[in-house]
């Protein structure tokens, strides 16, 4: 695959106005993005993701390091590099609220040097794809937040740029529109072979859309991996077993001897056992005891970990432990 963005040893500090204290927002970050890839950029507030995105967009100058966009050094040839990039950084705030949907698209096309005639077909196509055709004459002010967000993404699509950066694309929009935006983004990446970088707090969006995720914390990259790899890394071998009867004291002790961290919740109708296994073999030991003691098993559920929990674990610094355990 072809590299479209290459970020190397990026470093950015800010000086606090009153105290003159130096704050390191981005500390030696390096990564690259392949053409057609959807990359997720995650991190807690103040982690440095917005600074990183804005440096890629050419809105902030890095103190050190280099950013190459489609082979163009963005610090040396900023305007040239901007031909290959577009972004939605402030969502619906990136629009002119007193202009209509079509006027916004035409105005932004003009600001990139295109004529209305040149972009007419593109604009018609975008209005159609983003389901905004029936709203094209509506003033943006009167649109719902979800529609405004879709329009902001459509504006970013106008330029035919290879890379689209999206900061919180689903923030403040309803669930249905959120799914619609996700579908649109997936479509954009696949059909138009665009590279998308998404920064979001919505883990579902990242899990659904992104092939790869970079987690930034305190200005440094904590992890850079595929979402499924991260999920696998933090996968737990924990099971909830629903039993058809209550355990006797003897049965409970027997199980506890083998599985000291066993959690038993007795109930006349349905008792449950919660157990975390060290390895996959232990599940046979557990079932041997249950079979031997003739304890009926009604259901077995494996506990799953979602991406939000993975993210929190990584940010809390549990990455190292996970590596050790998995290896």
């Amino acid at each position: 695959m072809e590299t479209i963005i290459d970020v190397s040893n990026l470093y950015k500090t800010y000086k606090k106005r009153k105290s003159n204290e130096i704050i390191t927002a981005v500390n030696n970050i390096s990564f690259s993005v392949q053409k057609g890839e959807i990359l997720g950029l995650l991190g807690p507030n103040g982690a440095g993701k917005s600074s990183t995105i804005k440096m890629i967009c050419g809105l902030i100058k890095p103190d050190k390091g280099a950013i190459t966009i489609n082979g163009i050094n963005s610090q040396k040839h900023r305007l040239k590099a901007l031909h290959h990039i577009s972004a939605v950084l402030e969502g619906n705030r990136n629009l002119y609220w007193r202009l209509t949907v079509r006027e916004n698209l035409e105005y932004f096309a003009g600001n990139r040097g295109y004529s209305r005639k040149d972009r007419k077909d593109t604009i018609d196509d975008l209005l159609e794809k983003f389901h905004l055709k029936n709203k094209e004459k509506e003033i943006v002010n009167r649109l719902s937040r979800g529609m405004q967000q879709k329009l902001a993404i459509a504006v970013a699509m106008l330029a035919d740029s290879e890379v689209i950066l999206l900061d919180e694309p689903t923030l403040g929009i309803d669930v249905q529109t959120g799914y619609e935006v996700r579908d649109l983004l997936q479509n954009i990446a696949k059909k138009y072979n665009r590279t998308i970088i998404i920064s979001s707090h919505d883990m579902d969006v990242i899990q659904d859309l992104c092939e790869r995720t970079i987690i930034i914390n305190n200005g440094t990259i904590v992890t850079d991996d595929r979402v499924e790899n991260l999920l696998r890394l933090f996968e737990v071998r924990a099971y909830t077993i629903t039993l058809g009867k209550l355990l006797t004291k003897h049965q409970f002790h027997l199980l506890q001897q083998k599985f000291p961290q066993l959690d038993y919740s007795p109930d006349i109708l349905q008792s449950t056992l919660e157990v975390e296994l060290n390895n996959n073999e232990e599940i046979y030991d557990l079932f041997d005891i249950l079979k031997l003691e003739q304890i009926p098993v009604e259901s077995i559920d494996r506990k799953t970990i979602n991406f939000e929990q993975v993210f929190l674990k990584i940010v809390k610094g549990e990455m190292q432990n996970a590596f050790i355990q998995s290896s």
Partner: protein
Amino acid sequence: MPLFNLLKANLRKDYIGMKRYLPNTIAMLITFYLIFLGMFAGIQIVGDPSTQDANIQFVIVNYIFWYLSLIVVQDIGFQVGSEAVQGTLEQLSMSPMGISKILLSRLVASVIVNSIIVVSLLYLSMLTTGQWLNVDVITLLPILFLTIISMVGFGFIIAGLTIVLKQVNAFLQILQFILAGLVFIPLSVAPFLAFFPMVKGVDLVRGVMIDGLSLGAIHLADYIILIGNAGFYFVIGLLFFRYSEQIAMKKGLIGHY
């Protein structure tokens, strides 16, 4: 061609704004007309009757220029500030055309669209006072063009300050009085003001409209000062803006308010 498309897009945006918010445009026109009426009444009540006609003519020209300077110099500051608040400044800064070209096209578009108001105000004030000035378009246009260039340069300085400092509204309010001072003070009182942006231009326009000066009758030295001012302030303004843009990018201020 991209530059022309950029200008067309900004012209259209200004035109849409003016048309869609027509009551607002009319209200602005009425406000400026009322201010003019106040000045006119002032001259008639407290002014010297022997120089009344000359004073009224003087005020008409100065007043029109003051309005023009507000559009070019002050308005760009307000625009940059409000775009930063709206969140659109970041989008403009990401255009491969470059923000200075976008702002320049905004200024040009603003002058063209507002020239409708300027001409309306001029004829409305001439009609009210009964003082018909010499509107020699061929002589006025090159002087106006060069004067507006120096105003644009000044506008870029204000835009640069706004992009870095952001909260400059109080300064922009004061600026309108500074602009009034530059426009209203005659060069005969303070000749050094000839080297300030737009002052020489206003002086020459007064010469054309009040004293009937023609293009050929203007001294070479006046042309040199006019052209020199236009070039100097435009270049300085542009350089200052580019420098401010670099500072804003270094400090991460673009889009922040």
